[in-house]
């Protein structure tokens, strides 16, 4: 491959130069296009769900169609969008640049994991919407047995697709972990690493350790369906709760694969736009690791009313509270970073501050769910739906948007329209809260989740939530439209428009194919922003 430092990575034309490029920036960009595509698809399913729930009774789709719609929404959002999410996109693009490397440790493996992702995604989508002769998947993204064993829909192909996707995730995690260990520029010590890198590192560890478990679980499910082996089927001596345990052993830690990188993005943005060193660098870095570790021991909080033993119920409750502490530490440190700063509320910073705001809601509403006496009432109601949308959308998606706006000039060498970016932000902020705030109250009132129809007493709040949902949906179209417009028509971006001290901003925008002509030498940490004169 010809590597001239004056050609930037976007210049390549043609299918081959993109789809078979091992350049981490191109791979990151392809991932971005792919996951945003699925985000829009899954979002459309969400709109269908909210349309149906506008009023009690059947509105637009029948009960089976509704079950398919929320399954499509959940499965695509989780497996195709949010799990690859920030690491595969911004992580791929930024990680080597931030640590002063020319690429990730295994560039070809990186391309392979992209292709595995494409393959898995194609299988999942094709089988979700009904392979020939089979019905659309209607099990919910959680695939709980025995329903997923009995359902006449295409459980096996979807499961197979997710199984394949798992390898993409494992390989990316492996690649990043090795990259962070081995590819740091001279002087880039662990304690000088940008916090986004720490977050990617923590998430990578979870990807490597947890994903194989779900892979095996899914294989067991396929065998159960194909051969009736009896792992999860009570009449054959199996236990459906075993599946729940296996499933959440992966799917709880995976929540942190989703949220830790978003936290990392926020920790990058705050110091730049406040012109302040990050507050409590080590506390933030180590709390990422602590969260990753503890996240493996809390899966049981999804089973508080599932027929687990009383003993394990309270142990899991206690362990779940243990996650709250490193999370709280992060929030306090982010907020303290703003103290005595010089704060510029551009769109990336607006998103970062909104992340903190929404994340406090997400985190705090975890308390009544971790508490046994109160979780009994709230479990599997709309309270849970609202809680995890505050973490996943209010946290991860807002974090992704913060990062996209922040690194946009670096990625594309162009600027988006800042005014419209702010309008889009406020639309999203209002629409999002209008959708999910009412759902907390619905949860306290006892409205169960995954209900096609509901009693009249829930109608007003559902109506409000649906209206909010439509604003929420429109906001995304507006925001993405503005970014796409920026890619096509935006003005040329400077090398370092936000005044960041991190290494990725020392190279031209967009970066040359080889990143750095010479590997930089690092003499200080990334956050030396304060300009106060010491007496």
């Amino acid at each position: 491959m010809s590597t001239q430092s004056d050609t930037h990575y976007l210049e390549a034309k043609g299918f081959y130069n993109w789809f078979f490029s091992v350049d981490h920036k191109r791979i990151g960009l392809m991932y971005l296009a792919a996951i945003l595509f699925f985000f829009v698809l899954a979002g459309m399913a969400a709109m269908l769900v909210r349309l149906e729930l506008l009023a009690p009774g059947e509105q637009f789709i029948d009960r089976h169609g509704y079950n398919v719609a929320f399954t499509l929404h959940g499965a695509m959002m989780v497996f195709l969008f949010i799990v690859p999410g920030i690491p595969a996109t911004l992580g791929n693009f930024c990680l080597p640049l931030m640590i002063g490397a020319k690429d990730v440790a295994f560039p070809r493996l990186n391309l392979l994991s992209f292709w595995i992702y494409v393959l898995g995604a194609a299988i999942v989508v094709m089988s979700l919407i009904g392979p020939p002769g089979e019905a659309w998947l209607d099990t919910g993204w959680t695939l709980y047995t025995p329903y997923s064993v009995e359902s006449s829909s295409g459980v096996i192909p979807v499961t197979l697709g997710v199984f394949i996707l798992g390898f993409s995730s494992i390989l990316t995690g492996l690649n990043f972990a090795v990259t962070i260990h081995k590819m740091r520029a001279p002087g880039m010590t662990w304690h000088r690493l940008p916090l986004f890198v720490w977050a990617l590192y923590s998430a990578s560890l979870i990807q490597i350790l947890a994903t194989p478990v779900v892979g095996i679980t899914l294989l067991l499910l396929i065998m159960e369906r194909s051969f009736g082996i009896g792992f999860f089927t009570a009449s054959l001596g199996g236990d459906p709760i075993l599946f729940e345990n296996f499933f959440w052993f992966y799917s709880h830690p995976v929540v942190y694969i989703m949220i830790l990188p978003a936290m990392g993005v926020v920790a990058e943005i705050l110091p730049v736009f406040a012109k302040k060193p990050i507050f409590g660098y080590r506390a933030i870095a180590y709390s990422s690791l602590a969260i990753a570790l503890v996240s493996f021991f809390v899966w049981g909080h999804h089973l508080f009313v599932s027929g687990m033993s009383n003993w394990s119920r309270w142990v899991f409750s206690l362990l779940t509270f243990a996650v709250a502490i490193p999370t709280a530490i992060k929030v306090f440190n982010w907020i303290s970073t703003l103290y005595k700063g010089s704060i510029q509320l551009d769109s990336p910073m607006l998103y970062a501050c909104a992340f903190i705001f929404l994340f406090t809601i997400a985190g705090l509403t975890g308390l009544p769910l971790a508490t046994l006496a109160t979780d009994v009432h709230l479990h599997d109601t709309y309270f849970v739906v609202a809680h995890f949308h505050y973490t996943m959308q209010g946290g991860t998606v807002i974090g992704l948007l913060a990062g996209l706006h922040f690194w946009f000039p670096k990625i594309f060498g162009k600027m988006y329209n800042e005014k419209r970016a702010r309008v889009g932000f406020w639309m999203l902020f209002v629409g999002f809260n209008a959708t999910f705030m009412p759902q907390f109250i619905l949860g306290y009132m006892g409205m169960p989740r995954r209900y096609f129809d509901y009693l009249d007493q829930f109608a007003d709040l559902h109506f409000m939530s649906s209206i909010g949902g439509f604003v929420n949906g429109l906001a995304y179209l507006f925001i993405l439209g503005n970014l796409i417009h920026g890619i096509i028509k935006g003005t040329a971006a400077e090398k370092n428009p936000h005044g960041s001290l991190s290494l990725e901003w020392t190279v031209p925008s967009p970066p040359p194919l080889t990143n750095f002509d010479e590997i930089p030498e690092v003499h200080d940490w990334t956050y030396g922003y304060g300009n106060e004169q010491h007496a």
Partner: protein
Amino acid sequence: MDKILFNGLSELGTHVDRVHVFIIAIMAFCFIACNAVLIYFMLRYRRKGPDDVTASIKGNHLLEAVWTIIPTIVVLIVFVYGVRVWGDMRKPPENAMTINVTGVQWAWRFEYPDGRIEAEDLYVPAGQPIRLNMVSNDVLHSFFIPELRVKEDVVPSQYTHLWFQADYEGVYNIFCTEYCGDNHSYMLGKVHALGPEAWDRWVRRVPDPDAVQLSPAERGAKLYSKWGCLGCHSTDGSPNIGPTFKNLMGRSESFADGSTVVVDENYIMESIKQPNAKIVAGFKPDQMPAFEGQLSQQDITDLIDYIKTLNE
């Protein structure tokens, strides 16, 4: 709209709601405190110009210690409070009356100590602790009485249990809260907490004098939804898990073994009591639960009268 918390319907529910309010207070305090500081900083330190002087503070060990220790203490208190109240929720009082619950797609069955079986409607004496011993016939379900703050999954592999006590007469919702397929949102029921007189009448099966008298076909229509027949049998001609009831009476039905029969009262009775005796062609055996011993002869007659009304 009902009062969301502290509806005063059960003592245990009130204890649970105290935990709810305690946590809501903590959530509100932390939310307001964090975000007040956040928004204050955002406004107070807004950039005035490129020459703003900013502090070089990198952290503060004392602060880190404080905001590690205080949240730890707070969550421990919440945890202990939650476990204590929950402990009472898991221990049914000794004088509790046990009722067996079976979840099926998509209906609830209740079996009383004297062998009596009910569907959809759970009748209990008010003021008496009730222990539910629950199991599922098919997939996962979850038994939830929101007003009384109790919930527990209903699983095919093991018995699960919960207990509650409705302190006052009244009717409360039962929801299925674990996704169980097409009619998940219709797997509903009611708890009827009866006063001493009404309970006595119910036990002795004396019809409620105030209740409106229904015709047999009307009673049959109620039984059709109450016992979950609607989950498998349509009334509009569309096939479902089982054959449609439309134009069933008098239809010539062919079976998996090749034989045929003209549907009459006796055939329907047999089909309800022992569905596997004859399998309708094109449908699977072992799908329909046998209602032998669950439905009284009177119930079956009412159902047949209802099915007759579905002929055009």
